[in-house]
């Protein structure tokens, strides 16, 4: 017990004394978050700039514009020149252009159900992620209008929850992804690098010569890393809260539960890499080989649904996809742990599977 405590303490001391590693592992996610958040999230509040060209100028079209203006995430710019705004869209100054063609009001008044009116919305395909969010915001407004026009009485309450979820800004999407990324890189890359270097330098061998049990050593590693990760995640969340007003809507316990699961799963993968890597020099590239695809495909920066169809099955099994999704659901939507049972099970599966493989590949020397 005392050796567990002292080993944990020793590992924490090593972390804290290695100022450079401590600084950069924390600075990277924060800088990334602030940069992406400021550029794509457009600072505090509004994230999508769209232009609306009202060619109809009827009561109904004004209603639609009003409906869209209600959404704070959508900043509307009125224009009468469609060509102008379309070229702005191409340059990336705008995320969306919505045109309300002549005849919109009349058509809506007529209420032709068989042939719904088509509202053209232009978006720039080079900015997929943002366009998706914007399109949904517009969809949402249009949806409200269509429901009103047919005096639709909502019978399913979740509909309003859907509206709330779509109020999300990119930064809301980004922060849980950044936390997931941090957990992945600190644990997978961190464990792989540290363990393989300790092995190379004979540190592990020396400990093997004592009565210390491997399980105590690993338990202390997990505890120390979990404490450090928890702290780093808190700092990132605090910065996100201070800079962008991000809150955790769900339970903190659920967040902590997933941070723990993620830490353990990625540590286990890190132990596998440390087992496979013959030298500390090769551990880095192997960890990089795994972490880069996960960063870009795993829903850290972009929603997974934007990924090409053929990649979907592959993307769906990545542990980081489920970690970032679970954190996102908890923080943004306020999902409970039970809602996220599937994610917990998949992460748990990775944890157990990786642990079993690690116990076969792990070498003290």
């Amino acid at each position: 017990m005392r050796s567990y405590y002292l080993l944990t303490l020793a590992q924490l001391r090593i972390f804290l004394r290695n100022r450079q590693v401590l600084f950069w592992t924390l600075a990277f996610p924060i800088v990334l978050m602030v940069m992406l958040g400021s550029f794509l999230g457009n600072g505090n509040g509004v994230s999508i700039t769209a232009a609306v060209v009202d060619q109809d100028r009827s009561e109904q079209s004004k209603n639609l514009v009003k409906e869209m203006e209600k959404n704070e995430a959508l900043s509307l710019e009125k224009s009468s020149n469609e060509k102008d705004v379309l070229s702005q869209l191409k340059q990336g100054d705008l995320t969306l252009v919505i045109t309300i063609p002549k005849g919109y009001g009349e058509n809506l008044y007529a209420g032709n159900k068989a042939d719904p009116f088509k509202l053209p919305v232009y978006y720039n395909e080079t900015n997929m992620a943002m366009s998706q969010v914007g399109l949904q915001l517009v969809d949402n407004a249009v949806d409200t209008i269509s429901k009103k026009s047919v005096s639709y009485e909502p019978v399913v309450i979740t509909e309003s929850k859907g509206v709330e979820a779509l109020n999300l800004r990119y930064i809301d999407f980004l922060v849980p992804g950044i936390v997931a990324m941090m957990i992945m890189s600190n644990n997978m890359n961190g464990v792989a690098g540290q363990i393989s270097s300790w092995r190379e330098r004979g540190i592990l061998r020396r400990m093997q010569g004592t009565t210390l049990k491997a399980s105590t050593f690993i338990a202390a590693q997990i505890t120390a890393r979990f404490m450090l990760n928890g702290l780093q995640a808190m700092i990132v969340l605090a910065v996100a809260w201070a800079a962008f007003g991000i809150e955790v809507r769900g339970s903190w316990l659920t967040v902590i539960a997933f941070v723990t699961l993620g830490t353990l799963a990625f540590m286990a993968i890190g132990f596998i890499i440390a087992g496979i890597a013959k030298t500390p020099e090769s551990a880095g590239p192997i960890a990089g080989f795994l972490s880069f695809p996960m960063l870009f495909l795993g829903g850290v920066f972009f929603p997974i649904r934007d990924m090409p169809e053929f990649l979907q099955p592959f993307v769906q099994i990545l542990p980081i996809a489920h970690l970032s999704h679970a954190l996102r659901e908890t923080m943004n939507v306020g999902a409970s742990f039970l809602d996220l049972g599937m994610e917990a099970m998949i992460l748990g599966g990775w944890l157990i599977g990786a642990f079993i493989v690690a116990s076969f590949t792990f070498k003290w020397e």
Partner: protein
Amino acid sequence: METQQEIIKVEKLVKRYGDFTAVDGSEFSVHNGEVFGLLGPNGAGKTTTLEMLVGLRKPDEGTAIVGGFDITKELDKVKEVIGVQLQSTTLFELLTVDEILHLYGSFYSEHISIPELIDDMLLTEKKNSRIKGLSGGQKQRLAIALALVHDPQIIFLDEPTTGLDPQARRTLWDIILRLKERGKTVVLTTHYMDEAHVLCDRIAIMDQGKLIALDTPSELVRNLQSDSAVEFKFNDEVDIALSEIDGVKQVGSQKDVHILYTDDLQETLTSLIAIASEKQLKLVDLQTRTATLEDVFIHMTGRRLREG
């Protein structure tokens, strides 16, 4: 000797790496309270033998009883009674001397007073320094302190003085001799002759995985049956019967260096020079010395302990 109590008994230890046999059936025993040396060149199997005794490598055949416990069956108990200092181990560089000793102390059910241990190992001044900043000698003393932290009966030291300056080596020798005074059994490996001679009560000479001699240092030298060695080179390759030089008892030659062992240095030298003059050969690097363990090794294997 017969009154000595056996504390380590090695029985036919074999370790193979593929086709290569690193340790080939070593058999010896170590007595309680002695300093026992494993001597041999690099690759002789000293370190492999030692690592099997401390449980870091599994022997392919044979076993050993260390401190009353079988290394293949009761390794946990063996680890409690032994202390280990491994070759070229690094430690957590960012921890301090005091912290790492407490950490290693916690790995055992009991440990001795850390401040006293630090004083004993002459590390008092460096108590709160990080390991990173210690000198080679200080690091080595710390490694030995870590081996002693749980007050073991038997201490294994793998090349404790390799890479140290002469001053640091002597400090370490004093420490090892003090351990012996306290009744500890020390097993060490070395490829330094002088070190083995000063420290060890008995020496096992290993070469190519085999134990080739085991005795006290003075007895090993005495078995050479010669007091002095004459070492020299010829400037040309020649073929003369060196054993026919007056007084020569044995000839040890390797590459172009020739060594003659003799009890009568003057007679041998005179004769050697006469022969050289007669055959018009030039003697290079001629030196004479008393026979040492190095000569025992050369005599037994035809090679030097440290090549080059």
